[in-house]
């Protein structure tokens, strides 16, 4: 017969009663501290084991037995809580814990590098362009409120560049309504960036830096590449996915510090756009040749942007063909400019 010591709480008061419990095939008999109770086994709800804590048995009527005699309970209730009992076994061994570390690390790495980008690409294909356009409009609104002001480029020049842009984007048949936006953006330097849905923003500094319109068209072709490949939307989905992933993994660690969570996010995030830049470059080279422009103009403008950035490292913040290499150089957000210039020249 199985017997064990336990503490009995009657469920009405917090009085602790030391009792002796005897296990019979169909019932438990609880004796001691003035009690002599018989409880059918089927009416007992067994709490699963947790390392280093007492085992708990809920009895009918809200009473409870607590005991340290794990072996007795295992013998009495061999089939209770199969899932938690199995998990408890895994939790008890360092070998399983280390294997779990490997699985968790591998999974996180795979998600960040392959899973999320792939999921974002698949998901973005199902987002209608009208929603993308809305996202883009919202982004432009917030850019106008924080980073950029009205342009100082004269209307004639604007018209000329817009006509070139129209030629660049004509006949794409991809459902986007392309439009060129001129802005003067402080602290961004010579730059251009694509927003989801077809708006491309060109900074005054870039217009001034370019030696001819062909160079500007070359940059714009690169940005159109970002739009067509839905990079903005994909990045947004990836960021949301990554945040969700990290929140899930970190669980209750989040409350300890936000910093520990945001830092890895930033590190992973910066790795994404490499592939996107290459994709956009490849599109630009192809499209430029289609409209009878040489990709060498792309090489030229990249070289000029690089040069201007070297002169004034602070002037290159923001996003665009030459985003933030100066202040986040160690994260290598973009493939080395020299490499891209070389590729452009090869593609002439």
């Amino acid at each position, binding site marked *: 017969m199985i017997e064990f010591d336990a503490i009995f709480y009657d469920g009405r008061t917090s009085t602790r009663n030391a009792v002796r419990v005897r296990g019979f095939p169909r019932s438990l008999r609880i004796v001691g501290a003035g009690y002599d109770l018989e409880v059918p086994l089927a009416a007992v709800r067994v709490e699963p084991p947790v390392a280093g804590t007492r085992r708990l048995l809920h009895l009918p009527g809200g009473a409870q037995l607590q005991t340290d005699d794990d072996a007795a309970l295992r013998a009495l209730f061999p089939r209770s809580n199969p899932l*938690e009992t199995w998990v408890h076994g895994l939790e008890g061994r360092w070998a399983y814990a280390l294997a779990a570390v490997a699985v968790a690390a591998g999974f996180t790495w795979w998600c960040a590098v392959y899973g999320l980008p792939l999921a974002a690409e698949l998901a973005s294909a199902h987002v209608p362009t009208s929603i993308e356009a809305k996202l883009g409009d919202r982004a432009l609104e917030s850019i106008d409120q924080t980073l950029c002001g009205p342009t100082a480029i004269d209307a004639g020049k604007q018209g000329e560049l817009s006509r070139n842009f129209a030629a660049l984007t004509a006949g794409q048949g991809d459902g986007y309504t392309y439009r060129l936006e001129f802005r003067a953006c402080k602290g961004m330097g010579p730059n251009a960036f694509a927003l989801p849905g077809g708006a491309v923003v060109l900074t005054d500094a870039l217009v001034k830096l370019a030696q001819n319109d062909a160079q500007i068209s070359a940059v714009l072709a690169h940005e159109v590449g970002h739009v067509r490949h839905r990079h903005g939307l994909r990045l947004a989905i990836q960021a949301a996915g990554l945040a969700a992933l990290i929140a899930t993994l970190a669980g209750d660690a989040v409350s300890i510090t936000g910093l520990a969570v945001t830092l890895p996010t930033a590190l992973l995030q910066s790795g994404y756009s490499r592939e996107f830049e290459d994709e956009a470059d490849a599109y630009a080279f192809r499209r430029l040749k289609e409209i009878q422009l040489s990709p060498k103009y792309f090489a030229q403008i990249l070289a000029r942007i690089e040069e201007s950035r070297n002169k004034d490292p602070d002037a290159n913040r923001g996003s665009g063909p030459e985003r933030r290499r100066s202040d986040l150089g160690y994260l290598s957000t973009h493939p080395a400019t020299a490499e891209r210039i070389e590729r452009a020249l090869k593609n002439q």
Partner: protein
Amino acid sequence: MRARCPNCDNPVDSDAPKCDKCGALFASGSAAWKPVPVADDRRYPVGYPVEFTASAGEYFRIWIVNLVLTILTLGVYSAWAKVRRRRYFYGHTRIDGEGFEYRGRPIAILKGRLIAVAAVALFYGTANFAPSLIWLLAILTACAAPWLIVRSMAFNAYSSAYRNIRLRFRGTYLQCLGLLLWTGFILVVTFGLAYPYFKARLMEFLFRNHSYGTTAFEVPDLSYFGIYVRAVGLGLFVGLAAALGGMFFNAVVGDGSRAASTLIGYIGYLFIFSYIRAEIANATWSVVRIGKASFECALRTGDLFWLYLVNIIAIVATLGLAAPWAIVRAMRYRAQKMTVFAAGGLESFVAAESAEVGAEGEEIGEMFDFDLSL
């Protein structure tokens, strides 16, 4: 009224018929044994230290195994994982040798999580894709906030038991709504300066509506003004230190003054955060009474600051693997600094009938990351 037995010094009630420990009978009359009144409650009642027996290694294994199971089940298991983690911590928090018990049921939590995911998706979906409806969202959020607070408090209380007696939270939606509207109004007209007033009223609301079984938590009126005034003073000091530190760094090293200022600023912020945490916990718990039980909470700002700082560095340096260690450490410290005083022991609390509470409030609150730690 607290007293002690004249025979064995065991704490007893002044109107007790006999001593629980030595069995001495107390009777009326001049020659009989009588409980000796104790002037200072604080000095005499038996102090029960709060023990925290969790170990970092054990919790690490529980954490990582449950995390991986959550991953492998695409998140479905997360409800079970939460229950296991909580049960571990509750069970290892002991007073008078008896552990707490977490009674949240995974299925209830899973249901709550699914509702929470839908709510979050609706919230961000509306915010991003239908910004014209943002006002509707704001009204909905305002209406939902008291509900979230009340429901998550109620779920957590209902899920927590000690000596087989559940905690209970009786605060209602309307009470909470009234409180938020009133304090919100005061906050707006004082441009946020009344934040300590808001915080004190909220804590009073949360504590006073809790009970352990049938025994209500009692809290006198709270005031946190002194704490926040000193915190603002600290803030000014930190700002000054950051500016001076930046200048000093600039003069000595020549570059990176902004980084130096930022670093000093962050560390200073952590210090102020620790100060507010410690002082509010001390000021509140030290005046809480649950029947004959009272508490002493003696957190120290310096300790807490150092604890958090080391935790942050450890978590970042190990890419999160040190999180279980950090959490166990933080909880152990808080437990160590807490003592329960109870004349006549902890044996005479009475359970109450309470109705089951769903987990949606708690889960939605968690997803939106609001923290109402007591």
